[in-house]
Structure formats: structure tokens, C-alpha cells
């Protein structure tokens, strides 16, 4: 046996992948560090090339390494940890991996590997097109912003393209702060060149010469992977004064965030990139017209930008043919919280929440019934079992008062305390509020107090009315989504689990 693949992804490392890699290296075996396939219950998942394809073993501990070699893993030999051909695994085989097509397969630090897997084909096509044609291709693909707002990406780009200004920017919002989300992280750690290529295409399309990736400080492994890849792309001429000799300039830098959830909001992120407090700006003007340093700026999420290379490589129709209704292409769903098989599922829009929770997730990790699921991060609604047949589609979720957001799915079993979770939503909002608008700054703290009073039995019916009014004030009176959406988890918990919002006996 000459070579094994061991993920360097941070979840895999948190489960012991570094020790496993070291144990193989000690046996004289070449180890390639990859991203994670996103089958987290099998991490560390070790793969080996066989004539039939890559075979997998997991979860592997360092102590298993000797046994795996003795079992003949180089030929896919039988072993209690064997999962067979990785790509035939039902969890992967049923997915439609477009954005994640390289992840877990390639070495994210190797430009050569990226090129060998078809990397930069999208940029090469883009360089032969006009800016307007690139923007049209993105518009025709039906791609909508994957950060949560679902705004058509092509329209945003066209606005920037149409500004008669020489200095423009492309910024990538990699401040993936929603609990239960890790798709951006998997891309940045597992396939950073795809994001870099997507940003380069955006820059070439709209005439921007500088890009910034605003990455969470909580993701040190992503920051390191991005910097390694940017340096490689630069020295090979894929970034810099003349991208691939085209005469078009595009520079790219990583900026490290500093632990403020609000900076995932686009105007707050721009403030932060300018070195200021991350306070939300009033819109208009839109960032596409007056963004970073007052210049026209594309602000896109990691997943939106990472979808672009494939669209330019295979054409907009290829991407648009996936999905349902007005939700085109694929969405990266992140299975998190109390699930047996947590991980990353990339599917065309239209898959139901129930399929995700049970066919992929395997039900709860605790073995107890799944009681509620929060979709779309801390500002997303809690869905009860009666809504599990809702298809993952922006409009279908909006119709039941929920949101798809960034695709994070956090499952709770029947031990979850819904009133405590509603209170937490307010507490989180209070901690993360930028303080600029009153409903968010003060309403969040008041909301937690009102729930305390309700549960303590101080005029509970009055508190419920007050809570309802407070939620409406936040929704209609806040400047941005933090204050405007914090009521969603609260109201949905109250609506679907009313019995839990009653006074509790004091101990």
C-alpha cells in the first residue's frame, strides 16, 4: 500500500484525524490530507485507492491502523470499520454534489490537484466572455444568495457592473455564525480554490480589482487553508496583476473577523472590513452602489460564490435544471444537533425535511423522538413534527412561517425545553445586538425578562400579550435581520408548543 487519504477538516481533527494520519505515516505510508466528505459520524474516515475506486474505513482511531493494514485495506480488505466504496455509500450516492464535487477527494492545499480535477475551467471560459455575458450566465442559472436572503445573485452583479466607477470590490461573507451551519467551513477547508475561482470570476465580470474574504476568527483552520491557496493561486498567475495573462487584475486577501455575529449582516460586515464597529448601515444606498469604502461592492456568501465556477464551466442551464419552483440548483444542508448521522447533504431544492432528518440523519442521536427542528440558524423558526413534510424551497418554507436561511438544520429530541430555547433567542440577540436600533438593543433584553415573568407566573396572560406585541415591534421596527428575525424562533415555539409557555412550579 502506498497511500491513504485522511481528512484534515477540523471536525475530523477534533475526532482524532491528526493522530490517525501520524500513525499511518509511522508505518511508512504516504498520507494525503483532504477535506471531509461530511459524513461526520464516520470521521475520521480514511480512504484508500483500489482498482474499483476509493474504499473507506471509519471511524478510525490511531489504534486501528495496524489492524487495517493487516486486513489488507489497500485492496479494500474486509474489516469491521469498512464501509466499502465511499461513493456508493447511500448517504453520498443519493446526493447531487455540485458545489461539493471536489471535497473529500482533493488535497485542498494543492493547486495541481485542483487543476487535475477540472479546476479553473470556469474562469477560463469567463475570460473569453464579456463582463455582461458572465453576469447574464449567473442570472440565467437562477442562483440566489445562499447566505439566507436568497436575493438573485445575477441582479446584484449587474448592479455593480452597471456602475461607471473604476474602483469596485468583491467581498465574500464567510462570517458563518449561525449555529448548525458549517458548509462554508467545509468549502474553505476542503476546496478553497473553488471559492477563490468564484471570486475571481466575479471580479472579472464586474471589473473589480480587489477581493476580500471576511472569515470568522472561530475558523482558524479555514483562514490557514485560504491563505495557503491564495498564495499558490497568486504564484501561478491565477491572481494578481494579470489573471491568467488576460491583462485583468484581481487581488484577493483574507480579513479575519473578531467574534461579532452581527457582522454576518452585509452592511455590518462592510463596516468591519473598513476597520470600524460592526454597526448596521441604513439601506439605501445598496452596497452594490455604495459599498466598501463607498465603492460599488459585490457581497456574496461563500456558497453563492463557490457555485459560480461550475455555472461558468457547464453553462447556466446545467445548474438551473436542478431544483424546484424559483429555487434553482442545489442547497447544502447541514445536519446538526441531535442526529445520529450528522453531516453535509447537498441536494437539489425540493427534498423534504423528513427525508433529511430520517433518511440521511437517521433520527436522533439519543434515540428519543425528534420534537422540534430549527432551520436556518438562531433566527430561524422551530418546526414541529407536523411540518416535517415541508420541501426545502425558499417559498415553501416562507409559506409555513419558516426560513431556509443558510441551510442549517438543528434537531432537538423530546427533552428540549422550548421556552428556554425561546428565552435563549432573546439572550443571544441581546449579546450580539450592535445597539444601533432600539427595538433590537432593548427589546431583546426585555423579551428575556418577559419570558422569565411568564414562567414565574407573574400575570402570565398579560405577559403573553406583551411578548406578542414585543415580537411585532422587533419585526417591524428593527434595522436588520437580527432584531427583525429574533422573534421567529420565539413565535414559532409559542405557536407550536403552547403548553410549555405556562407558569412553572417554583422549587
Amino acid at each position, binding site marked *: 500500500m502506498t497511500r491513504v487519504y485522511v481528512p484534515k477538516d*477540523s*471536525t475530523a*481533527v*477534533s*475526532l482524532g484525524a491528526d493522530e490517525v494520519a501520524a500513525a499511518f505515516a509511522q508505518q511508512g505510508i504516504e498520507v494525503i490530507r483532504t477535506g471531509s466528505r461530511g459524513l*461526520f*459520524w464516520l*470521521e475520521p474516515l480514511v480512504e484508500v485507492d483500489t482498482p474499483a475506486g476509493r474504499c473507506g474505513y471509519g471511524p478510525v482511531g490511531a489504534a486501528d491502523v495496524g489492524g487495517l493494514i493487516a486486513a489488507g485495506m489497500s485492496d479494500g480488505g474486509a474489516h469491521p470499520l469498512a464501509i466499502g466504496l465511499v461513493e456508493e455509500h447511500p448517504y453520498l450516492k443519493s446526493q447531487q454534489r455540485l458545489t461539493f464535487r471536489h471535497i473529500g477527494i482533493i488535497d485542498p492545499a494543492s493547486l495541481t490537484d485542483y487543476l487535475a480535477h477540472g479546476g479553473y475551467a470556469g474562469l477560463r471560459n469567463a475570460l473569453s466572455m464579456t463582463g455582461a455575458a458572465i453576469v447574464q450566465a449567473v442570472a440565467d442559472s437562477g442562483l440566489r444568495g445562499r447566505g439566507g436572503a436568497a436575493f438573485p445573485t445575477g441582479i446584484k452583479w449587474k448592479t455593480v457592473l452597471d456602475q461607471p466607477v473604476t474602483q469596485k470590490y468583491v467581498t465574500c461573507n464567510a462570517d*458563518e*455564525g*449561525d*449555529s*448548525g*451551519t*458549517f458548509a*462554508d*467551513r467545509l468549502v474553505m477547508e476542503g476546496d478553497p480554490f473553488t471559492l477563490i475561482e468564484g471570486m475571481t470570476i466575479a471580479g472579472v465580470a464586474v471589473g473589480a480589482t480587489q477581493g476580500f474574504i471576511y472569515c*470568522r*476568527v*472561530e*475558523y*482558524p483552520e479555514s483562514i490557514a487553508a485560504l491563505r495557503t491557496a491564495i498564495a499558490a493561486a497568486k504564484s501561478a498567475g491565477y491572481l494578481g496583476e494579470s489573471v491568467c495573462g488576460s491583462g485583468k487584475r484581481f487581488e484577493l486577501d483574507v*480579513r*479575519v*473577523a*473578531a*467574534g*461579532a*455575529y452581527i457582522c454576518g449582516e452585509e452592511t455590518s460586515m462592510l463596516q*468591519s*472590513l*473598513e*476597520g*470600524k*464597529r*460592526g*454597526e448596521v448601515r441604513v439601506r439605501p444606498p445598496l452596497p452594490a452602489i455604495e459599498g466598501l*469604502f463607498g465603492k460599488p461592492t459585490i457581497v456574496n456568501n461563500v456558497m453563492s460564490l463557490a457555485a459560480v465556477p461550475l455555472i461558468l464551466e457547464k453553462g447556466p442551464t446545467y445548474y438551473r435544471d436542478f431544483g424546484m419552483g424559483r429555487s434553482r440548483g442545489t442547497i447544502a444542508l*447541514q*445536519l*446538526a*444537533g*441531535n*442526529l445520529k448521522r*450528522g*453531516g453535509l447533504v447537498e441536494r437539489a431544492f425540493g427534498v423534504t425535511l423528513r427525508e433529511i432528518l430520517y433518511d440521511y440523519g437517521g433520527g436522533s*442521536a439519543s434515540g428519543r423522538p425528534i420534537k422540534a427542528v*430549527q432551520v436556518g440558524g*438562531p433566527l430561524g423558526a422551530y418546526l414541529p413534527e407536523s411540518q416535517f413534510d415541508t420541501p426545502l424551497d425558499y417559498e415553501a418554507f416562507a409559506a409555513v412561517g419558516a426560513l431556509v436561511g443558510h441551510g*442549517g438544520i*438543528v*434537531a*432537538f429530541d423530546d427533552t*428540549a425545553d422550548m421556552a428556554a*430555547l425561546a428565552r*435563549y433567542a432573546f439572550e*443571544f440577540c441581546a*449579546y*450580539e445586538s*450592535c445597539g444601533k436600533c432600539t427595538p433590537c438593543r432593548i427589546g431583546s433584553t426585555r423579551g428575556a425578562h418577559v419570558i422569565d415573568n411568564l414562567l414565574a407566573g407573574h400575570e402570565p396572560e398579560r405577559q403573553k400579550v406583551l411578548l406578542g406585541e414585543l415580537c411585532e415591534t422587533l419585526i417591524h421596527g428593527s434595522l436588520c435581520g437580527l432584531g427583525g428575525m429574533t422573534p421567529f424562533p420565539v413565535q414559532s415555539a409559542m405557536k407550536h408548543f403552547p403548553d410549555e409557555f405556562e407558569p412553572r412550579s417554583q422549587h
Partner: protein
Amino acid sequence: MTSVEPTAESQAVAAAIARHGHEPGPLIVVLHAVQDALGYIPEQAVRQIADGLNLSRAEVFGVVTFYHYFRTHKPGARTVQICRAEACQARGCQSLERHAREKLGIDYHETTADGSTSLEMVFCMGNCATGPAVRIDGRLYSHVTPERFDALLAHQENAL
């Protein structure tokens, strides 16, 4: 005005300004460089950064205090970060939080009296399928039960 002998701290701050001061919107980049070097942003550094970047001290102070990540006090020898977000709550992080605070005898944003350990809360480290998640001195761990937490701390102490 009296001239002050440059300290190791002021030299680190000067180096951060020299290295990053020319970048567009440099303040947060400089603050990161200072905290990377010193572990926190000393009060003295605020004045020095304001002078170096031609900003008011109020502007620098306002930014330092806006962001949860920047610290204004010297941290312990090691920093323990516990994720408090929903996905880790769904895996029982509340009991880990209680345990950690009792075990260390401190609350969040505090440092043990012997200066060995600082405790910080974070909202999500992107490790949401294998919670509760904890980071100790930059190293991420999954499935951290109270028992595992004790073992990790003890293991670290032995390794020191």
C-alpha cells in the same frame, strides 16, 4: 511630554502598526496582530494605535470593545472556549457549561486566580454535528462530556 523607554509590549504594537498600518481600513487587522502577539489589547496600546493610525482613542476603544474576540485583560496561560449555541445545546452543552464553571471556579470571561485558565463562551465553531464542542488553546474537541472535559484538562496539565 516625557519620553518613555520602549517596552516589549510597545514594540509589539509598533511592529503591528508598521506591518499593517498601510492597508485599507487597517484598525482591526492591527488589533488582531497586537492580540496575537500579546494575548490581549493593553490599555496603553489603545493610545499608541490611535496615534499610529491617526484615529481618536475613542474610535480605537470603541472598536476594541465592540468585538467579543478582543480582550482588554491579560488572559490565563490557556484559554478554554465552550460553544453555547443551539446545536451544542441539542447535545447537552448546558450541563457541560455548569460543570466547567464549577470545576474551574470562574464564570465566562474570567481567569482562574492562579492565572492558569481563562474561560470564554463562543457561539458556534462550525462543529455542529458532533457537539458539545470545546476548543482548548486552539485545539478543537468533539463530544465533550463533563468527564471528557476533566480528562482533557488533566491531559493538558500533564503535557505542560
